[in-house]
C-alpha cells in the first residue's frame, strides 16, 4: 500500500458564494475517503468555518484575493489545508464561546466548532502571503473502504 496521498487541490475566488462549492468538494472527498455521514458533516462544517475565516477575516472580503484548498486523503486520515492571502489573525485572542459571559455573544463560535469537529487543527502564519490552517480528521477503520 503506497503512502502517497490522493490529492485534490483548488483555488477559489474570495467570495461567500464559493462556500457551497467548497462544501460540495468536501462531500465528494470525504465520501470517497470512507467517512460516515456524521463525520462528513463535521468536516464540511469545519471547512465552511475555515473558509469564512479566510474570506472574511483573512482576505477582508476582497474578491480579487484567493482561497487555496488542498485535500490529502491518506489511508488513515484526511488532511485539509486552507490558505488565504490576508495578514493573519491571532487565534489566541478567540475567547471560549461557552463560558458564561460569552454564551450569548453573537459571534466567536467558528474556531470552537472547528476544534470540536476535527482531530487536529493547526494555524501557520506565512509572512507576506497569508495564513494557512490545517485540519485533520482520522478515518474510523470500521468505515474505511475495502
Amino acid at each position: 500500500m503506497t503512502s502517497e496521498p490522493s490529492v485534490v487541490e483548488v483555488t477559489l475566488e474570495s467570495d461567500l458564494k464559493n462556500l457551497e462549492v467548497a462544501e460540495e468538494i468536501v462531500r465528494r472527498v470525504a465520501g470517497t475517503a470512507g467517512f460516515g455521514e456524521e463525520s462528513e458533516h463535521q468536516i464540511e462544517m469545519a471547512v465552511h468555518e475555515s473558509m469564512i475565516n479566510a474570506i472574511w477575516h483573512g482576505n477582508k472580503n476582497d474578491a480579487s484575493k484567493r482561497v487555496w484548498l488542498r485535500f490529502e486523503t491518506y489511508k488513515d486520515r484526511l488532511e485539509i489545508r486552507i490558505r488565504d492571502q490576508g495578514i493573519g489573525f491571532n487565534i489566541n485572542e478567540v475567547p471560549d464561546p461557552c463560558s458564561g459571559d460569552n454564551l450569548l455573544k453573537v459571534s466567536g463560535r467558528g474556531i470552537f466548532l472547528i476544534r470540536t469537529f476535527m482531530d487536529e487543527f493547526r494555524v501557520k502564519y506565512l509572512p507576506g502571503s497569508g495564513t494557512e490552517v490545517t485540519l485533520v480528521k482520522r478515518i474510523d477503520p470500521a468505515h474505511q473502504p475495502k
Partner: protein
Amino acid sequence: MSMKATIRQVDSVMVVDISGRITLGEGCAQLRELIRDQLTKGNKRVLLNLADVTYIDSSGIGELVSAYTAVSNQGGQLKLLNLTKKVHDLLQITKLYTVFDIHDDEAKAISSFQKP
C-alpha cells in the same frame, strides 16, 4: 439553497417556518430583518420552526442568539421548534441548548407562551 421563511399566526404567536440555509450572508440577514420587522409590529411572541433547515453555521447560531436577545429585551419570548439532529447537536455543543426553550410539538409550544 438560500433561506426561505413564511410567517403564520397561531393564537397570539407568530410561527416562522424556516427552510434552507441559515449561514453568513443572506440567510442571517433575512432572519435578522424578519425578527426586526416582527418586533416593529409589536409581535413579541415568536416560534421559529427549524424543521426544514438544511444547514446552519456559526453565524446562523449567532443569529438565533441575536434574535433571542432582541425579543427578550423587548419583554417578549422566542422559542425553537422541531430541531433537526444537526441543529440539535450544534446547540448542545455550544451549550445553547439550555438557553433556548425548545419544543418538538407545535401545539404544546404555542400553549407554553405566556398569554398577552
